[in-house]
């Protein structure tokens, strides 16, 4: 557990450092995500690193299994915006619902269209 969380935090730190030099164009944790995947692929065959690999996988599974709770503190912040919700709540809700439905439809159609065009088997 401790090794796993340390590895994740160190990769986040590497990501933040890279983000700093890239001018903040891509967020640090996202760079960390790509780098941890690359590092796992690159060191997959290195025997002494196997325990560290296993711990990273276990810690990540535990975090991802409880992903939802991580959004609660930010979500409670909605109480700071009662003026905006009272005055423009319906417009905000309309934007959120419409753009989410549009995004879901466009994404799933683009995925399936290109999967069929490139000869992939689509589960019907």
């Amino acid at each position: 557990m401790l090794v796993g969380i340390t590895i994740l935090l160190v990769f986040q730190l590497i990501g933040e450092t890279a983000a700093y030099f890239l001018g903040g164009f891509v967020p640090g944790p996202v760079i960390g995500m790509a780098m941890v995947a690359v590092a796992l692929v690159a060191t997959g065959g290195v025997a002494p690193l196997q325990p560290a690999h296993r711990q990273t996988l276990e810690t990540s599974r535990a975090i991802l299994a409880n992903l939802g709770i991580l959004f609660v503190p930010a979500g409670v912040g909605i109480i700071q915006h009662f003026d905006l919700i009272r005055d423009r709540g319906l417009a905000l809700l309309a934007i959120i619902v419409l753009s989410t439905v549009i995004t879901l439809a466009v994404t799933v159609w683009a995925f399936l269209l290109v999967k069929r065009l490139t000869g992939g088997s689509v589960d019907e």
Partner: protein
Amino acid sequence: MNSGLWVYLATSPLLWLAGTLVVWLAATRIAALSPGNPLLNPIMLSIAAIAAVLLLSGVQYGTYFEGAQFIHFLLGPATVALGIPLYEKLALVKTNLLPMLAALIAGSLAAVGSTVFLSHLFGFSPSVVASLAPKSTTAAVAMAISSGLDGDPALTAAVVVLTGICGAIVVTPMMNAMRIRDYSARGFAAGLASHGIGTARAYSVDPVAGLFSGIAMGLNAVLTSLIVHLFL
């Protein structure tokens, strides 16, 4: 209740950290009573319960966040942790590379484009438009994008969570109505439109959907931070 004790505890991070965990565990138990019901979303239940407690007791959000920040902080390492399913299912990812790339570009443009267009249509100020624009990406990333565009990161955080809950609620009935049974495509759409909350939902529906949702969430965070400048 002893009001002296309440004043003492309500200002300590311990109460709000422990409280958030207890509320979350209760909310997941309630959601588990009806697993197929997307309206019983544990994130939405937890936020509603905690917001009600804060409003009724008059405790400021800043005081709450002093305790809850320890949970919030884990959004960063959780984003890094999404690299692990990517590594574990690399073969599956490789065979779907082109569909993923097309869906990523189309979906990311649709997410930011439709949000910016609609919020201009409804006459929101440039600061609110900037706060809404990255709402399909994960909270930590969206807040960074929003503050770079002179938006309000606190508003962005709230809207990101609402977008995630909206996606988690509509994705299953919508995909069923569209007769789409390909769980890689369904999951990818869920993660792109509604980030980690959609991903949590996707994992609870199907493991392949969860994997593709996590990948979409990561990729969309990268692409949105680049393309948002096209619209604002």
